[in-house]
């Protein structure tokens, strides 16, 4: 029975006999396991501190801190808020229009919406970056309802008078959704983690092996677009986006245009935030550049001003480019890694495209489920050794 760290807090039962030669620390751990039905200790390393990494860490901690003692969680990342991809995103909860049979992702999206909604009357909601916003999805032709129509609030089709506001668009939806702003949410997640003793390392992990060799039991791989650097993944590609942040506080609705031919995020969108309005409409598959360029800047500015003429008066405050970690589906699964005698379980949780914030909590819960299975297997092994 390995004693993981001096952080162990155990109460010695009265009358416990210490075996000669056995260190008392080891015995304490053993005793506590005896008392508490074979508690397992675990050292978990989460790689990545975007919304996926931080929420996975929090979910695992919340669900297993009482049954896994000690549960040591360490976060490793070279980028923290406000420099992650999650920070640049506008923060509107909205999945892609259709799940194409991927019902699991629809389920995770809905779980995230329902979870965030429970905070909506909490006075700390704005500290978390959560608030409601309603708005429009526009189309140039009649379109079947999206897979998320029952997840959002008040979903309906647009009336002719509403469509008059958007020349060139003949069909659309209106609904109330949630905003979840990374720049507030990520610091909030880190506070919750810090409160529970999670340690953050500002360090780039060069290989899974370095963590496995150091004795980590479980690695949670939340490395987003750079997952390929740790393990090649042909399915993972950058979906480059560029956005402008403007001052337009008279805008109170999100407006998303959609083009089935060119695909998601390729046509103008306008998403008011808590302070600034994000405007965008760029999706370049395979483009690794994280620099803003003037061509995309012009395209976004012109197309969004055409959609909403009042934007002509808006002051541009920021210009940012980010890489959506695009994949045919989210990679959320276990893998066992062995390097000689050293062995660790890896829970992969990456490839969330442009819907990381939208799906994060459902995925974090599933990552915690997978973690639970690892714990269970470890316990069974321990039991079978007795």
């Amino acid at each position, binding site marked *: 029975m390995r004693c993981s760290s001096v952080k162990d807090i155990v109460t010695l039962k009265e009358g416990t006999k210490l075996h000669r030669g056995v260190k008392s620390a080891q015995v304490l751990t053993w005793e506590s396991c005896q008392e508490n039905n074979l508690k397992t200790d675990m050292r978990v390393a989460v790689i990545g501190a975007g919304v996926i990494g931080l929420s996975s860490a929090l979910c695992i901690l919340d669900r297993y801190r009482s049954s896994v003692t000690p549960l040591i969680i360490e976060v490793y990342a070279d980028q923290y808020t406000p420099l992650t991809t999650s920070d640049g995103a506008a923060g509107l909860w909205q999945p892609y229009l259709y799940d194409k049979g991927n019902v699991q992702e629809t389920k995770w999206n809905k779980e995230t919406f329902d979870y965030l909604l429970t905070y*909506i*009357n*909490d*006075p*700390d*909601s*704005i*500290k978390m970056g959560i*608030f*409601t*916003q*309603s708005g429009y999805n526009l189309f140039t032709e009649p379109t079947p309802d999206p897979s998320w129509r029952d997840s959002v*609030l*008040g979903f*309906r089709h*647009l*009336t002719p*008078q*509403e469509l008059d*506001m958007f020349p060139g668009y003949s069909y659309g939806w*209106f609904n*109330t959704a949630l*905003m979840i702003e990374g720049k507030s949410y990520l610091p909030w997640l880190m506070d919750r983690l810090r409160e529970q003793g999670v340690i953050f390392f500002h360090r780039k992990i060069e290989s899974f092996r370095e963590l496995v060799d150091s004795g980590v039991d479980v690695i949670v791989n939340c490395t987003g677009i750079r997952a390929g650097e740790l393990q090649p993944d042909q399915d993972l590609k950058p979906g480059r986006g560029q956005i402008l942040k403007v001052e*337009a*506080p*008279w*805008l*109170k*609705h999100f407006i998303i245009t959609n083009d089935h031919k060119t695909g998601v995020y390729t046509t103008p969108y306008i998403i*008011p935030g*808590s*302070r600034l309005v994000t405007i965008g409409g760029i999706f370049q598959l395979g483009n690794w550049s994280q620099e803003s360029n003037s061509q995309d800047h012009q395209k976004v500015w012109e197309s969004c001003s055409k959609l909403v*003429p*009042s934007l*002509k*008066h*808006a002051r541009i405050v920021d210009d940012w480019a980010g890489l959506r970690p695009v994949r045919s589906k989210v990679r959320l699964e276990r893998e066992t890694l062995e390097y000689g005698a050293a062995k660790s379980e890896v829970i992969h949780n990456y490839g969330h495209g442009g819907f990381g914030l939208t799906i994060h909590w459902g995925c974090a819960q599933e990552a915690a489920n997978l973690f639970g299975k690892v714990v269970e297997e470890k316990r069974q092994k321990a039991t079978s050794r007795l």
Partner: protein
Amino acid sequence: MGRVRVAVVGAGVVGLSTALCIAECIPHCSVTVLADKFSPDTGSDGAAGFVYVNKFPDTPVDRQKRWLKDTFDHLFSISNSSEAPDAGVYLISGWQVFRDPPSEKRPYWSDVVLGFRFMSDAELEKFPKHKFGQAFTSLKCECPLYLPWLEKRFKNANGQVQRGRVTDFGQLCGNYDIIVNCTGLGSLSLAGDTDLHPVRGQILKVQAPWLKHFIRDGDGLTYIFPGISSVTLGGTRQKDDCRLTADPKDRSDMFERCCALEPSLKKSQVLTEWVGLRPTRGGLRLEKEMFQHGSRQVPIIHNYGHGGGGISLHWGTALEATQLVKECIGNRYLASNL
């Protein structure tokens, strides 16, 4: 016949819009706005500017609906143009919630606003004390921006503006052919109108830029209207109360009521507060009266008594007042040609 000289008394939202309407629609008029108070000191300036109006008991519903629709259409086209931020006009969606379902679930204005529907059970969960609600999209029109915007347009149409207090219509009869009375509560003395009375409204402005929806309690007393640079919280409806200074008890009471509807407001920063007196009347007075001044008879078009619906009805009543002015000019022409 020479130029018709029109005096519009009052420079709140009703006065300026009526003056603009006349100047733009009737070419051979020279229009002058006379008032002692201009933006940002008018009764219109502190109002949230949400387009929504309660029924006037003494005005036929179809007439009120026409005023509301004309105003909505006018503001709607501004909101879709590049003028929107200058004019302070924009769309806003939200909810009106009722503790008990009202007798009239679908009010007369439900097809004037956009996307009117009843709230779903899931939506009502945000308001645990309320059992019924309406969701819709309406407009906001912020007078500290809108009034200067109207005035600029008015001057571009050769309108004149004169500062000064009018205490008697007789003062104007020597220099003007038609008088348009848009003095709101000023008509208490100016028109000796005993049907008119103030209804005091106190509001609070807070910093809460994450709020994007309006929330209005169907009782009309508690409301939250996000604006361009602040959120308006309200309010009060105190009949015949003329106090223009803010009451700390009213302030803490309305803040508490608003926080109950929207808990995140507890984290908002208070900016300012304001008190306005709604010029209330059983029926909105929009009609012609012949004023006897010595041997002359001067027509007065009254356009006042909008209560809390000044912004919501202004353009519709301006159009109707302009029509009445046109009729006066027509009659005058006929008279001068007999």
